[in-house]
């Protein structure tokens, strides 16, 4: 079956809505229908799944959704992504990169980290997830090993965020061009400056929104590049 524009719209809507309402089966079926047409799945991922996650971010900001809702939406997104990603055509102009991500030592909270990781997965980065309670020197080791463009450090508690400047210093000393993003409940713009990091998002909803924005802007860059070529 070919993917005409009406069918395409329908599937995009089902993918997005499925993520928003964490209807795993709906997402699975819509993704499978798309894949069965043999078409490139790029739009299904970005205009379907990511668009749904964008809505989840808005609902989170409006305090209609909370962390459990976000986690369930993320599960639905991954169900779709696992089906769609293998059939996505590689894009020459796409932003390719690697990111090392983890929660710093002393902190066993990884939910915020996983949400940010999800958006890197969607955007097509190679994600090296070190997990939680990660010894500080492991971030440097992995960055050097993978030559990643970005390192993301997460901390849920003020008490564990103090490990961050040490990691930042270690990485800066070896690789000054690496972008370092830090995030978590205690992180503010002020802390980003003090610690010498490059970026953060104010809170969980902002982290999701920022990550979605990042993915959306990557898509714009790709579209522009595609239009030129």
């Amino acid at each position, binding site marked *: 079956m070919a993917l005409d524009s009406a069918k395409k719209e329908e599937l995009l809507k089902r993918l997005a809505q499925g993520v928003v309402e964490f209807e795993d089966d709906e997402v699975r079926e819509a993704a499978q229908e798309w894949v069965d047409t043999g078409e490139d799945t790029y739009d299904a991922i970005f205009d379907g799944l990511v668009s749904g996650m964008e809505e989840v971010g808005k609902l989170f900001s409006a*305090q209609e*959704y*909370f*962390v*459990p*809702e976000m*986690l*369930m939406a993320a*599960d639905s997104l991954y169900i779709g992504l696992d089906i769609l990603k293998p059939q996505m055509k590689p894009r020459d102009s796409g932003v390719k990169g690697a990111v090392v991500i983890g929660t710093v*030592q*002393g*902190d*066993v*909270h990884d*939910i915020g980290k996983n949400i940010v990781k999800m958006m890197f997965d969607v955007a097509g980065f190679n994600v090296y997830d070190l997990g939680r*309670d990660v*010894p*500080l020197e492991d971030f440097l080791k992995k960055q050097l090993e993978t030559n990643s463009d970005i390192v993301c450090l997460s901390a849920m*508690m*003020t*008490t*564990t965020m*103090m*490990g961050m400047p*040490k990691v930042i210093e270690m990485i800066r000393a070896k690789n000054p061009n690496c972008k370092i993003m830090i995030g978590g*409940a*205690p992180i503010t713009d002020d802390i980003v400056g003090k610690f010498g990091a490059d970026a953060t998002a104010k*809170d*969980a909803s902002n982290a999701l929104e920022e990550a979605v924005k990042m993915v959306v802007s990557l898509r714009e860059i790709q579209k522009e590049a595609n239009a030129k070529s």
Partner: protein
Amino acid sequence: MTEATMTAKERVLRTLKGEKVTPVPCFSGVGNVTTKGLEKLGYRFADLHNDAQKMAEAAMTSWELFGYECVVIPFDLCLEAEALGCVMNPYAETEELLYPTIKEKSKLTTEQLRAAATPELLKKGRIPLVIEAARIVREKVGDQVAIGSYVLGPFTLGGQINELEVILKGSLKKPEEMKEYLDALADVIILVGNHLLQNGIDYISVREMGATSDVLSPRVFKKVIFPALKKVADNMASPNILHICGSVLPVIDMMAECGYSALSIDSKTPMKEAREKTGEKTVILGNFNPFATLNTGDAEGAYNVAAQCVRDGVNGVHPGCDIWPTAKPENLEAMMKAVRETSV
């Protein structure tokens, strides 16, 4: 007895009974050891957790150095989880100062928790060690200052012994199952809390930070969290404090309805609105950000923050979280001074 001759212990315990004390006490129900205190003793933070003598000595230092009106033990959040078969990491080998975490979760089920909630549990892990530390503190301070301790709230303890993600999703997907699970955890908490209160602890905090409204919807709080928190309040001896950090304005009426001796809130919950929602009778402790106030800020700022808490009508000036050890001594002194000098 005039207020001027009241001991710190009386000031805190009267406050928790709902009596007005002037000036309000400045104390905490959670960790408050400082690097300055540790330096005085020559102890590493990681060495305190498994040694009753060191735990007791370190816990007294903020009282001794700054007149902070409490002695609180232990310093970590792993006590009940350990007794329930989890393994704690004290970070003994790490250079950085870190709070212990659970490195292996026992993942007990509702049935296993029900079976575990017997007096046998009270002999496990470091529960006897904390009681020994309380005895050592009492020997030293007598009735001058109250000894506090804490347990986790049912939802937060659930996240300690099980995968937090499972608990979070369960609260939305399978609320009835999760209610049963939290009910079983409440029994454990009641058991441990009462044991501590019967063995030298003067007041206890129930720390339910996992259920803050930054994380869970008021709907889920009402349906899943509230019944378990109320069960704890109904069955645990007093004085007890319900502590939830983050923004709790949407649920503070339910927190008050549980019936704890006092509520403890942090800076993300505005005091005036909290008071409006709970009424004059609710004892509210709070509500400053300890890290911003005591660690990164200066003495003048700390003075102003503490004075503002008093003017906003707290019944006790209390941090929104543990005081992180590197707190500046001059900031602690300024905070104590502000509370003494400020009246409503």
